[in-house]
């Protein structure tokens, strides 16, 4: 039945229950990750965005909140072209950040 509206499942995240150990490890290697101010320049220049919805802004936010599966899903089509590095107003080395994420986070989200 279509009521013209629907209920979305809750997207609240309980940070007490999230395992952030891998984010801490990532932060150790890439201290710049907390410099991100979520301006979205990387997303708007990203060529992988129209394939896997890649948005580095969201990836960083998701990892901070422990939503690893969603983050890796977006990273799937990243082509490492480096445009995000060039447009980043905070000077974050996003290519190296992405490579570090690929090193630390596993495919099965362990």
């Amino acid at each position, binding site marked *: 039945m279509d009521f013209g509206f629907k209920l979305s499942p809750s997207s609240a995240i309980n940070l007490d229950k999230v395992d952030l150990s891998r984010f801490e490890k990532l932060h150790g290697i890439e201290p710049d990750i907390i410099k991100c101010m979520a301006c979205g320049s990387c997303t708007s*220049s990203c*060529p992988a*965005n*129209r*394939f*896997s919805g890649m948005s580095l802004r969201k990836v960083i936010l998701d990892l901070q909140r422990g939503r690893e599966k969603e983050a*890796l899903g977006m*990273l*799937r*089509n*990243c*082509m*490492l*072209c*480096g*445009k995000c590095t*060039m*447009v980043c107003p905070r*000077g974050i*080395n996003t*290519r*190296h950040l992405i*490579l570090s*994420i*690929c*090193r*630390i*986070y*596993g*495919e099965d989200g362990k």
Partner: protein
Amino acid sequence: MRERFLTGYNDFVLPFVCGMIFVLAYCIIGMTRIILQLPAQDRKRFFISLVTPKTFFKNVKDIFLKCLIHVDLWKRNKLLGYMHSSIAFGWFMLILVGHIEVFLYTSNLGAKALYYPIFFRYFVAETESTMKGSLIFFLMDFFLLVVLSGIALAIIKRVRSRLFGMRRTTNPSFLDLVGLYSLWAIFPLRLLAESFTADISGGSFLTKSLNYVFTEFLSNHANMLPAWWAYSCALGIFFFVLPFSRYMHIPTEILLIPLRNAGIRIVNARKGLAKAQVYSCPSCGLCIDACPMVVLKGNIRDTTVYLNRQIRRNNEARIEEISDKCLLCGKCTAVCPVGVEGDKLRIAQRSVRKYSYSPDYSNISAEKEAMMCNKFVTAPNNEVSSADNEKVLYFAGCMTALTPVIRKTTESVLEKAGVEYEIMDKDGGLCCGRPLLMAGRQDQARQLVEKNTEIIMASGADTLLLSCPICYRIFRENYTLPGIEVIHHTEYFERLVLSGRLRMRRDNTKYVYHDPCELGRGCGVYEQPRNVIASAGVLVEAARNRKESICCGGSLGSLTLGFDKRKAMTENAISNLMAGSPDRIVTACPLCMSTFSRYSDRPVEDIAQVVDRTSEAGKL
């Protein structure tokens, strides 16, 4: 000549003989290992190339010109060239003439063949008939003098390397120093030893005259033995440290040259060709001055010569740091006198990294992408309509998407020239794969190459036009596109100008052209952009250009260099371009353009902008 001793043996030959046997065994084992480490296909290719007359003669020629004469160093700096070739060629001739002498004057050599050619003068005495060999005496002294002059220059070079055209030299390791000092000691000691015996065994202008001096105060012949012992010990020490010092390049380069001429590429990061290259590094340090990163002194230890040293030591942490930092501009490869490919070696090191997550592009539909770029439009300019009906597919590339002016002006030029074209990545296409390849993720790069190949083949184009040298390089090296010509826009513009489809208006603006790394050193395109610019204005040259052009510092090659570190490199590259005080900087790479425009005080343009501004439609 007659032999002085019945046995033809003295204990002092032992250090030399042991060292010699050790080095020979080490080299034979090492060579066999490197050849066995090659992939089976490459090994077969290598053996075939050894017996093919063409490559055989090329090998002999290259070994002679590179290992002995050091032609590349001569081209760089005469003094540096003389220093190296005098030691290498002089020593080689001493060994060669020494052998000839021994085989002329003695028979029944047996085991004595091991050391006689080196210590011949100790074991023989001059006879009445020896004067026939005076030419050989002269040659031996002459080449000894040549080597000694080289050694003298080498000593000067350690103090004043600038005289030899080198601003910085390598900091030698401990064993390098041991090798260095023993090498310096060998030839003066040889002179001393031969001078002591010159009145018995004969000599020429050098040894004979020194002998007259010595007999003045050292008349006792018993004094000669310590000199011969010292000479033999110096040789022995040199041979024993050779495999563990930079002098390993001497035997390894002889293997590297045939490997290179066989067309073998680096497959494994540490084995096979990579190993041969690492051990061929003579630590000369030419790559230090060449490296664009060295404007910051902290980066000196991250140049190719130190990478080779760390690979030899298996220092994994430093190998990773050095190989990730590099901009992959390829200049160290271009200046290297032995042909160590610093950029490819680093990419190989990056490719062995373990990642627990790998991107995968199988969800991208090539058909859908191809549908978006198969409607070729003919430009409205009918006067110069495409003569040969070529369909040009223009792939602007990721970087051009950040500098849209390049795409717009290129399109405008294509329209003026009446070219039938289509843009492959109007709404952002796929990446070419080169950035992934540079990061060492070869499987991912291969996937993108396959996707792009499908798209291009389905589009029905016959020419693929690129405005980004990064794309251009991988399209030339890693793509197989049968029936499609891959061309960079600098080359295409030159063609349009030469064929008269574009008419240029020349004015007096002074342009300097910056050779992008990937286009110049990577693809060997130097002349075409210069021809185009020369038809638009006055072309001035940078202080260092073409093969030695300096990377803009914006390269995608470096994984770890941040923006703050790159600024000094960009400023250094700009000051290099200012040598001819140009009005405008022209480049042919979107990445160089945006990097330079950040810090340059003059307008920075892509060649497409210059052509668009100064051209009008021609007539066919």
